[in-house]
C-alpha cells in the first residue's frame, strides 16, 4: 500500500493507505480523530468538513493519498491549551447545536467563511455560506447567531 505523510493539526503523521481511502477514513480510522463526522457520505451534508491547506473541504469527497504532503486542520486542532477557539465558544454560548452531530463541520465551514470574507458577516452571507452544511435537529437560527458572534471574536 502507498505510504503517505501529512501534517494534521500541526503534527506530522504518516500511514499506509489504499488509493481509494478517503481522507475522512484516514482521519477517523488511522488517526483516531473521530471529531470529523460522516453524515451523508454523498458530499451534501458537510459534517465531514476539515481544512486542507487552509481551505474547507468535504473530507468524505477527497482521497487521503491526494492529500499527501498537505496540511490538514480538524475540529480537534482548534482549541489552544484547553481554551476553545472563539467559534467553538460562540456555538456553546449561543446554543448553536442540539445533538451536535453537524457541529464540527459547521464550525470548520464557519471559520473558512471568516478566512475568506472577514469578521463582519451579515445574516444573508452566513446562510449562503452554510449551504453545504445541513442540521437535521432544529432550525439554523442559533447556528447563524453563533457564526456571527464567533466571527466577530476571531
Amino acid at each position, binding site marked *: 500500500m*502507498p505510504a503517505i505523510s501529512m501534517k494534521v493539526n500541526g503534527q506530522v503523521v504518516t500511514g499506509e493507505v*489504499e*488509493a*481509494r481511502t*478517503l481522507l475522512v477514513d484516514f482521519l477517523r480510522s488511522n488517526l483516531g480523530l473521530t471529531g470529523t463526522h460522516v453524515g451523508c*457520505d*454523498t*458530499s*451534501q451534508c*458537510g459534517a465531514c*468538513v476539515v481544512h486542507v491547506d487552509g*481551505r*474547507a*473541504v*468535504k473530507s468524505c*469527497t*477527497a*482521497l487521503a*493519498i*491526494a492529500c499527501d504532503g498537505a496540511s490538514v486542520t480538524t475540529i480537534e486542532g482548534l482549541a489552544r491549551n484547553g481554551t476553545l477557539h472563539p467559534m467553538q465558544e460562540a456555538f456553546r454560548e449561543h446554543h448553536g447545536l442540539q445533538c451536535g452531530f453537524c457541529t464540527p463541520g459547521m464550525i470548520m*465551514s464557519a471559520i*473558512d*467563511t471568516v478566512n*475568506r470574507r472577514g469578521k463582519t458577516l451579515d445574516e444573508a452571507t452566513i446562510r449562503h*455560506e452554510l*449551504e*453545504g*452544511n445541513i442540521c437535521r435537529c432544529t432550525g439554523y437560527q442559533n447556528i447563524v447567531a453563533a457564526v456571527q458572534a464567533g466571527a466577530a471574536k476571531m
Partner: protein
Amino acid sequence: MENFAYHRPASVADAVAAMKKAKDGKFMSGGMTLLPTVKQGLAAPSDVIDLTGLKNSGISVSGSSVTVKAGTTHVDVATDKGIRQVVPALSALALSIGDPAVRNRGTIGGSISNNDPAADYPAACLGLGATIHTSDRKLAAGEFFTGMFTTALKPAEVVTAVEFPVPAKAGYAKFPNPASRYAMVGVFVAKLKDGSVRVAVTGAGPAVFRVPAMEAALARDFSAKALAGVTVDAKTLNTDMHASATYRAHLIGVMAKRAVEVAK
C-alpha cells in the same frame, strides 16, 4: 468503492501517457463528481490520474479575453477581481456552483470535461462562445459539448484552459435544485462586442444548447420584454423527479428574462 491505481503526474505529457497506459483510466481534477460516482459504484476506473499535480491554475484578464487555466477552482473564479470587472456574470455563476467546500475544490476543467447536463460552466462557455484549449488543440465551445456527459475530448486528451471573450454585457440566472444546487434550468445570455447575442441553456436538455429564436429577439432589442412570447419546444427537454419537460420549457423563458435583467 473499488480500488484503483493512483497517479499524480507533474506534466500534461505524463498525464496523457498515464492515461494511454491505463486499461480504463479516468482523469480527476477536484474530484467533486468523480469521487461520488465511484463511491456509488457507478464507475470503477482501473486508474485515477489526478491532475492537481499539474499545478495548472490561474487567471489572466486582458481587455478582450479572460483565460482561466483548467485547474482553477470555482472559488478562485468567483473572487477574482479582474473577472468581476469585465465579466461579472462569470463571477456570479461560479459563486452559485454547489457550496463553499465544493467551490474550494472543484475546477473549471473538471466541470466542463464532465459536461453534466445540469452543470453551470457549460452555459457560460457556450453563452460567451469560449474557446477550450486542450493538450492537443483548441475547440469552440459549440464543438466541445457534444451530448449528455460527453464532449469532443479524445480518451487521452486533457483540457488545459478556457478562454472567454469579454462581452459587452452578460447575465446568468438559474433555478437551482434546492438540495444539490445544480441547475434545474440555467440560462446564460451575452451580448458580444460585435453586437451578436448568444443564449445558452443548461439543466433542461441532455446537454447545454443555444436558443436561436431568443438570440434573434435579443439581437433586435436586448431587453426582457423582447423575449415575451418566445417559447422553447418541450419535446427535447428532460423530465425527471424534479421537473417535467413542460415546466422546464417554462422556466427557460423565466430564467432568460431574469438573465437579461441582471446582465451587465
